[in-house]
């Protein structure tokens, strides 16, 4: 995909523009010279070892949990979630 997407499209926020205050922070990073550019070292490695991965099991939600999820649906028809008309591009 070579289409250039502007930040308002990327953010799904109408009319969004980059902010001057935030750009000033980014300028500091652009001008910095970190001695180490290997971003995959293990200083902030919060990864989980394969042995510690949890079991891949389906856990049934409780009745009250399901009820609240339904209550949070913005639109509902005959018990089903209704979404806006889907677009195709």
């Amino acid at each position, binding site marked *: 995909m070579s289409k250039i997407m502007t930040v308002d499209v990327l*953010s799904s926020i109408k009319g969004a523009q980059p902010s001057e*205050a*935030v750009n000033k922070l980014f300028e500091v*990073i652009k001008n910095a010279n970190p001695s*180490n550019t290997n971003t995959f070292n293990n200083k902030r490695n919060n990864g989980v070892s394969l042995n510690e991965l949890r079991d891949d099991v389906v856990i049934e939600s409780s009745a009250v*949990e399901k009820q609240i999820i339904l209550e949070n649906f913005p639109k509902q028809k005959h018990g089903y979630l209704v979404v*806006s008309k889907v677009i195709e591009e």
Partner: protein
Amino acid sequence: MDSQIHKIHQQLVNKEISCTALVQEKLDLLKQNTNHTVNSLLDSLALDLAAKVDTKIAKGETIGLLEGIPFGIKDVYMVQGTYTTASSNLLKNYKSAYTATAIQKLLDAGAIPIVKENCDSFGHGSSSENTIFGAVKNAIDPNLVGGGSSGGSAVNVAKDYTVFSIGGDTGGSVRQPAGYNKVYGLKPTYGRISRYGLMAYASSTDCVGPIAKSLEDIRIVLNVMSGKDIKDQTTYVSEPISEASLSSSQDIKTVGYFKNFIESEAIDAQVKADFLASIDKIKAKGIEVKALDFFESETLVSTYYTLAMAETASNLSRLDGTNYGNRIEAENLKETYAVTRSENFSEETKRRIVGGNQVLSQGFADEIYLKALAIRDQISGNFETDFNEVDVIISPVTPSTPPKIGNSLKDPLAMYLSDAYTVGFSLGQLPTLTVPQGTTTGLQITAAKDKDELVLKFANFLKDTI
């Protein structure tokens, strides 16, 4: 040791007060309060739980230490069946379907949740003004901000509306409001407490953090909430911290502080003088104090905000009004997303989402995002070296005193820079505690990863030293 929890526990056991009367008193205080600390009161849930505690006591059954103790919860934690708004328009009618692990552990211990507390929307702010519930007013001077983002929580503790509160700290959001309202606030080591059920802001630094009036209460609540959780795989197994261990500080021989924090032009003259006076008092106790080199404030703040914005842009992309949230219909799905987000997010939240998408987009990721990650590694490396030389690091919590309400959101860059002393420790994922001593907005104590006990020990030592 001084402890509100122990004191109330004893009063309940001795039948000097009933749990129902205690909870009702706190609910009344919260209802009448003019500091804008409340997003919703959990009155019927709290009173039901209080009645059960009273029944137990009446039957002569033993109650646990936290049983019947009323506490507050920052409105970014899931508590099943309660509104969880993140102080935002988008989620103003959202109900939690489940309960956060940290909160569930407190409920299992018998503590009683009484309030969902006001904060900056999605944690985006340093003043608790970025909220649909009205700016939180400082507990000491209501013309000043309550601090943020866990402002409502810190003010409730300071005002005795809650015995303790659970805030969330991503870049200082527990420590700074604790400092602004002169109470204790802990950001534990990243991963010590499960983040499951804490609404994600920046997942690589988000921490659950207790706020309380005494060190002992921080210790009690920390112990209950800590532990490995299969639902948050960044959690680890930690040892409980005993009350007795805090009374000895013999293993703290060397304390460090960052020279450039104190030599900065941005620091308030009084904060600087008070901090240096505290250093002198520590030296007078025979502890060696070392001045350390550290990154410039601008670099720390820029690194933190670059990464936090990237993470929040990603985390908040799910908020589009489809499965939940305040959906605003438009002509098609894509437009519905855009209108829902544009109308419901605050200006500050939009600023951070847009910033995050900027740095994650093609052409900018290498130049900004990946570089910020590399700087973060250097910061962590710097801490590792420092903790070979010193046992703990102390710093002021903020460069200046709390701003007046109405000023922070007008100048976002100044607000970001006011986090200069807190964000570095977040990037390092280090345990850091605010103590209400040393400067007008307190002191931070930091130790190496998983040395939360050492932080509490030194805080206990400081109680009688400065």
